[in-house]
């Protein structure tokens, strides 16, 4: 098998193993595992509205997965996608409410604001890494909390809070965005909006950037060996900044999809976990943009379907358990593949020895 095909096969095996362990876990607690899984399938694919839910979640997960994945390409681990997601969501909510424009301009303007909002904390982490030598895992964890607290406990309850005297439906969070900033929906009876096509285009563009351009080649070189890249004259710091800016922008767009497509304002409580899920999506998708797309579709379906698990008494956090297990199995992917090779090697050398002895037993 080619290494690409084998990577895909091992990622798929990780997903299937995670689902199998999850099945056993449900069965062990004495609940109806088969019934639960069939409900997950039904909730993910069973109807037009279910498919809409799956695709909305897959679009957001594609963004956060691309976010973590593109940082991985240059060798950075962006755990800050959650904070960047929130920063982008808030930026989209603010621009979506403050401006008065036709849809054709208002939606792109809000999306751009979200991309910029998400890129900001990511660039701060890149600066801390490049200029001050602070490890990005630590800085992005810290920046997550900085963003979460300033947005959730200051901006959204303070300066940006919707005036309570207005006749608007919601009393907590920011005010409703203009109708012109809402993501247009594609069908009646489904929440599927233009977020999914945008996410697919982003994934394909990222794939083209990484595999077909000099810039992408240099980014991959920095990730493979930073010292060799520096020696080869690649502007390493600029590539790191670019990757983190893209990373933050993708996460911010994920937040914007949820605000402009579903919530239509920044709610008082908005802790979705999509940013952290992006880590799982990127790892299972092997940081390949198209792999991310496939992994996001899987996790989106599980997330959408998991809400139905409550009907058989299983908490939807089960989806997180499946994601964690899938990541654990992906972590063992390389050693697992090496073990397979070793087994194959033993068989091969055994056959060689037999042949040298002159014949089969």
């Amino acid at each position: 098998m080619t290494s690409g095909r084998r990577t895909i096969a091992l990622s798929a095996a990780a997903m299937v193993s995670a689902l199998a362990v999850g099945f056993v876990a449900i069965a062990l607690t004495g609940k109806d595992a088969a019934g639960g899984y069939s409900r997950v399938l039904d909730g993910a694919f069973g109807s037009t509205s279910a498919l809409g839910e799956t695709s909305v979640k897959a679009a957001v997960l594609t963004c956060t997965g691309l976010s973590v994945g593109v940082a991985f390409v240059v060798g950075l681990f962006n755990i800050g996608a959650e904070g960047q997601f929130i920063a982008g969501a808030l930026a989209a909510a603010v621009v979506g409410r403050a401006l008065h424009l036709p849809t054709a301009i208002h939606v792109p303007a809000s999306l751009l604001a979200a991309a910029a909002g998400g890129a900001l904390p990511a660039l701060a982490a890149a600066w801390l890494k490049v200029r001050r030598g602070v490890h990005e895992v630590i800085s992005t964890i810290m920046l997550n909390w900085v963003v979460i607290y300033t947005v959730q406990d200051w901006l959204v309850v303070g300066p940006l809070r919707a005036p309570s005297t207005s006749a608007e439906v919601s009393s907590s969070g920011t005010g409703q965005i203009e109708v012109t900033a809402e993501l247009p929906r594609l069908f009646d009876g489904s929440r599927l909006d233009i977020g999914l096509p945008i996410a697919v285009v982003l994934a394909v563009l990222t794939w083209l950037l990484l595999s077909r351009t000099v810039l992408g080649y240099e980014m991959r070189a920095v990730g493979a060996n930073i010292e060799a890249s520096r020696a080869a004259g690649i502007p390493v710091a600029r590539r790191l900044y670019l990757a983190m800016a893209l990373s933050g922008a993708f996460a911010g767009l994920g937040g914007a999809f949820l605000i402009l497509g579903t919530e239509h304002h920044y709610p008082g409580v908005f802790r979705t976990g999509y940013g952290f899920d992006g880590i799982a999506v990127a790892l299972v998708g092997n940081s390949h943009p198209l792999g991310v797309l496939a992994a996001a579709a899987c996790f989106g379906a599980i997330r959408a379907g998991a809400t139905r698990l409550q009907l058989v008494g299983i908490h939807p956090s089960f989806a997180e358990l499946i994601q964690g297990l899938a990541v654990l199995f992906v972590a063992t992917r390389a050693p697992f593949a090496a073990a397979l090779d070793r087994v194959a090697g033993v068989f091969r050398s055994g056959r060689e020895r037999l042949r040298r002895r002159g014949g089969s037993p």
Partner: protein
Amino acid sequence: MILLLSILRSVLDFAPPLVLAALGGVISERSGVVNIGLEGMMRVGAFFACWAAFASQNAWTGAGAGIAAGTAFAAVHALVSIHGRADQVVSGIALNLIALGLVTFLLEATFGTTGTAPVETLPELPSLLGRSPYTYVALAAPFAVHAWLHFTVPGLRLRAVGEHPHAAATLGVSVARVRWAAVLAGGALAGLGGSALSLAILHRFDNKMPAGLGFMALAAVVFGKWTPLGAFGASVFFALANAGVDAVRSAMPPSGPLADLHLDGILLAAPYLLTLALLAGFVGRAVPPAADGIPYDPEAKH
């Protein structure tokens, strides 16, 4: 004066989980295994401590269960990252995700809730001079670990394995065995730290636990330059910052022009911003153990 005393009291109560988890991180990372799963290990420690203390009506059993749960979780990390030579950061992230889902799942399965475990009568640990035993363990453990790392043969071996595993192996040290022991010990300390949250601080389990404390512990490891005493100092500093923020927040008037500014969020974010600023400027470049995060391959060229 009263304010200072209350801050001191709050540090003595709230620092132990952070100190213990950070020490666990130091031991693991000094042997060369990055432990980003501290958060998950604290979480299972906190949950199983509450569960066992409630089931057995004995707080000591609870603390033991917390240690056992943290160690069991660490065993998965060790298996995957030492035995399987997998990416240690990925393995740690996976453990955090699994702990998040698994504990919510178990919380509902055992207590029928997804919020706070409805435990009215969680047995308490005996207190000494008004403080829980955790306070004293957290005050003594950093010095014990420091002495162990620097003045004993196993401690020297652990540091050697984290700096130059091939050299250590040449001298007959089993790299895998030392790392296994270090990761398990790290998990035990993180689990113990988690148990302090449910047994000594809140006296119940809340599904939000440990609310990022494991990641703070990780920052304390880096901030403390991978030394037990440094991590201890960093943890106490974080606890002090949090206590200060809490004191300021509770001193704020509930209404009026100051309350209308909603400065809560800025106050809550301040310790993290301060940490970033200190990491960026004050402590300079922190140098991790040379082999930290690198799977040991005896056949690799070196």
